[in-house]
């Protein structure tokens, strides 16, 4: 059953990801990219990680996809134009893919058979974030705030000129 569902979700996600990479119109690619996020969140649901799956939809479809769409609109592209094929993109993609595969293979925990996942409560997630992983969380928060302020300074109008 699980293998069957996995097959459906995996092929769906791959097809949509391929569409995102090959569709001629940039906006279509962005929209299929958003659908791909849905496929990935379906994986999390399949693994029993309901919370992560919902956050995946929430953050990636609600925020990241909208950000991508806005970026396409606000940068000087002719949105309707056919995209070219860049070899540099292929190189970067292969490098990232290779790096990820290397990291996954090197990770010890993948080799261990997974224990039965317990249903996580919100409280446990909160405690994990606020006690065990409080420093990474704070670092990410500071980084994002810095990025936000930086972006604001970049677009701020100089009133004197």
């Amino acid at each position: 059953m699980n293998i069957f569902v996995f097959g459906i979700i995996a092929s769906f996600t791959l097809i949509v990801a391929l569409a995102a990479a090959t569709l001629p119109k940039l906006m279509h690619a962005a929209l299929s990219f958003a659908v791909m996020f849905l496929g990935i969140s379906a994986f999390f649901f399949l693994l029993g990680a309901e919370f992560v799956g919902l956050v995946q939809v929430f953050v990636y479809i609600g925020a990241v996809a909208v950000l991508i769409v806005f970026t396409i609109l606000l940068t000087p592209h002719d949105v309707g134009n056919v995209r070219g094929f860049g070899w540099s993109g292929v190189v970067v993609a292969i490098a990232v893919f290779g790096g990820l595969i290397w990291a996954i293979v090197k990770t010890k925990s993948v080799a261990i058979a997974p224990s039965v996942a317990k249903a996580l409560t919100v409280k446990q997630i909160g405690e994990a974030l606020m006690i065990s992983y409080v420093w990474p969380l704070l670092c990410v928060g500071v980084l994002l705030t810095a990025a936000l302020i930086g972006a604001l300074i970049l677009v701020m109008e100089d009133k004197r000129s």
Partner: protein
Amino acid sequence: MSQSLDQIFIHAKQWLLSFLSGRASDLLIQIVSSLLNIVALLGVFLTLFALMSVLERKILGRMQNRYGPNRVGPFGLFQPVADGIKMLIKEDIVPARADKIVHFLAPVLIAAAAILSLGVIPYGRNMTPFVIDGGILFFFAVGSATELTVFMAGWGSNNKYSMLGAMRAIAQMISYELPLIITVLPVVMVVGSLNPDKIVFAQKYYYFGFLPHWFVLTPWGATAFALFFVSGLVESNRTPFDVPEGESEIVAGHMTEYSGFKYATFFMAEYLGMFAVSGLAVTLFLGGWHAPLPWLAFIPSYLWFFAKLSVLLFVFIWVRGTLPRIRIDQMMNLAWKFMLPMAFTCVVAAAVWHYAGHRLLAWLWSLAVIAVVYFALSIFLDTRKKFTPRRYRFVE
């Protein structure tokens, strides 16, 4: 008697499912059970949508000193049927330069998102259509997909008014999503769960035997409820925040290029979204399906839920009949300078209330936190503009 009346729909569903038990596999029973939930949900809310559309016109008419629809059926009650038939037989026009697929998918997806978010709200005792542990998160996850579908509608139409409307809609939805979600946080914090059922159960007790334990009766709850309601108005693009579709400026925003039943679908999605936000407000702050007084608990729980829901929906209509549309810059200022700090204050005030022990003293401390921030904000945000009668300058 009241017990069985309360559970009548649950029993009806079990009775229907009993025909299947023993004859079909568990998976099939589960699917049929889900389908029954969906049919009930759609039946109730599409009826409510039809009712709401005619009542809104009636009430607005009343507020503006006119009759409203009164030709079709008694008191114009069959107006939605006539509207539906009209919408169905209208020509479906797709602009020649529109992106056909995206243009078609947008209304479908926006209605799907609205219907999905209705699925996690507890409508009565044991009457949550789909029990998800992270129900509140599910609600917002689905709701956040709306932005993308609005964008699809605007971009797919290939029309500058549609695009402008979609951009406005996304700008205001993203800005108000923050206060909307942050005002939910105190409730989630105090209850310690994202499950809507548990949030409703946490509000079932009564102080002194008559004062309900609803979160709206705490200072942080009242503030959060007000902020949540205003954000809900914005999220459902209602007046005074209907900038995205402002008929007098950009025709109908992202819906400009839609006609016939697709337009009706957008309209329906907007109303369903309104029901969903109001339903969540009832669940979070107004005690869900609990009776306001303990000796009124004999009235079935779902009736209480829908009574509270209709009160909120009436306020939606009332606000629409009363307030003019506000400008986009006023709206953004309100969101980022006032609503967001107040929403964060609610979180702090709820923490104070929680750790000071839920008693009268805690209540006062919580009120103090909110009052201090409110007055500080009102001093800080004061533009020192005196509002004198406006003098208009015309081109001569």
